């Protein structure tokens, strides 16, 4: 740790942050005195303080919302013929998530795949449509950001950021570098690189996302391996909310990028071990999507 503290402003600021520990003092003391003519913007902590053993981030919902400033095409909406009533939406019959497969942003194959999934759900063939984390699959990028019921945690070091979901202890790794690998083998969470901006934002750029059982949202909007996701994770002004503005580009699945938004509130919650596959059975014979299972031991 000491070694890395001597290199680079980011590392130095983080080390100062670590050294002052609970005080959370920004790195003001490090800013050299300057004449008013060259006065910099007010000093800020060099990076957003996302990681702690004392707090975590709990999603406000399991669906994307429109970004506060409309930038382009928003998230895929429910099919107008099948309005969505979530189980936290107040009184009324809860309905399934039936996505708007007629949205012109979808390439024909993607629309057809969504229609098939909708019909499978509406016919009752699969009474509860696929939802990755409910059935112990990784949520992919950006879908994993939609897990609502248990919080996520950050770990921040000068070279890397980890996002750890309490749910089934899923982990995403973000390498703080400006360059993707030359060859990326597609995987559930792909390859994420990131950097901090303006002292309050973590920008994450992800490619190399595999497609099997991987969706952009809980309406089962599919993507291809060309999916490119940019997430901007930022603290609200009062520090009590974490906000993600997400742009999903996929020239083979979407006619234009989707602009998505998610929020989490800061909660006091110590990371517990919760194990998804435990007692996760199809008690009501709903033909739930199968859990990941190894038919023979891995080793």
């Amino acid at each position, binding site marked *: *740790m*000491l*070694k890395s*503290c001597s290199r680079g402003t980011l590392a130095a600021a983080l080390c100062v942050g*670590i*050294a002052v*520990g*609970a005080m959370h003092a920004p790195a003001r003391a490090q800013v050299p005195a300057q004449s008013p003519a060259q006065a910099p913007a007010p000093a800020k902590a060099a990076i957003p303080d996302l*990681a*702690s*053993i004392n707090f975590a981030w709990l999603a406000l919902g399991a669906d994307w919302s429109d970004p506060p400033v409309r930038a382009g095409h928003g998230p895929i909406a429910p099919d107008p013929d099948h309005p969505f009533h979530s189980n936290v939406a107040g009184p009324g019959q809860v309905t399934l998530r039936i996505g708007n497969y007629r949205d012109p942003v979808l390439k024909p194959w993607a629309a057809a795949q969504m229609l098939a999934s909708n019909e499978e759900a509406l016919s009752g063939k699969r009474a509860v449509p696929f939802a990755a984390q409910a059935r*112990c*699959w*990784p949520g992919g990028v950006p879908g994993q950001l939609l897990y609502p019921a248990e919080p996520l*945690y*950050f*770990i*921040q*070091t000068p070279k890397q950021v*980890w996002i*750890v979901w309490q749910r*089934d*202890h*899923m*982990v995403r*790794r973000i*390498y703080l570098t400006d360059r993707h690998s030359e060859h990326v083998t597609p*995987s*559930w*969470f792909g390859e994420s690189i990131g950097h901090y901006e303006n002292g309050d934002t973590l920008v994450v750029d992800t490619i190399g996302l595999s497609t099997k059982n991987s969706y952009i949202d809980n309406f089962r909007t599919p993507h291809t391996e060309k999916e490119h996701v940019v997430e901007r994770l930022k603290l609200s002004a009062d520090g009590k909310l974490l906000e993600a503005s997400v742009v999903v580009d996929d020239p083979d699945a979407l006619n234009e990028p989707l602009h998505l938004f998610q929020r989490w509130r800061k909660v006091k919650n110590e*990371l*517990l*071990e919760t*194990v998804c*596959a*435990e007692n996760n059975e199809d008690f009501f014979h709903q033909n739930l999507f199968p*859990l*990941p*299972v*190894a*038919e*023979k*031991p*891995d*080793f």
Partner: protein
Amino acid sequence: MRDSRVRSGAGLGLAALLAATVLSGAAYGQTPDMSGIYWATEYHPKIQLVGGGELPLTAAGKAAYEKNMAGLKDGSIVDNARKLCVPDGLPRVLANPYPFEIVYGPPGQITIMYELSHQVRTIAMNKTLVKEDLIAFPAYNGHSVGHFEGDTLVVDSAGFNEKTFLDATGAPHTDEMSTTERIRKIGPTQLEDVITIHDPEYYSRDWQTRFVYTLRNDLRIEDYVCGEPHRDLSSVAGVRRP
């Protein structure tokens, strides 16, 4: 933090208290840096005791082991760590042939993240285990607290559930098991973890097993989903893929 270091029977003397004073707060500047990615070079399905010999099972422990072995053989007991990829528990997770990483952070915690079944262990630094938590929230990998003694990270764990085996052969434990790991660098690229198992109902004495890992910061931890193809393990001696 420093007042939380009052533990009984753990052999902590004045030196440890002094060390705790120095190390209190979130800074790790004075502590050895073990962060990085590590990978075992060998794998043993059956636990290997330090000093050799067989597990010092009590009569109850022997009966539990025989029941596990018979059940695993005839299928009446499922090895859910391999079939559903639930956490392995201690010390079995230490034996696994996949890489893992040790991260110092967030401040006040050391986090160990395993590629295998994306298991995460949090080690609260300079804290004590809270007995009520251990009983109320038994966990596959238990609850862990740690502190440094010189060059060694000492990790005490308890609060285990009874859904895990100590190894792939079904060596048993009770939910009263507690463990102490002594983790240290034994060379520039070698990490050693010696774990002591204390479980008097099943074992007539405390016993130890030892693992050595190689620093592999050239690797990245990969996504792991049960039943999918995973990393090539041919470099790890003793791995037999069915």
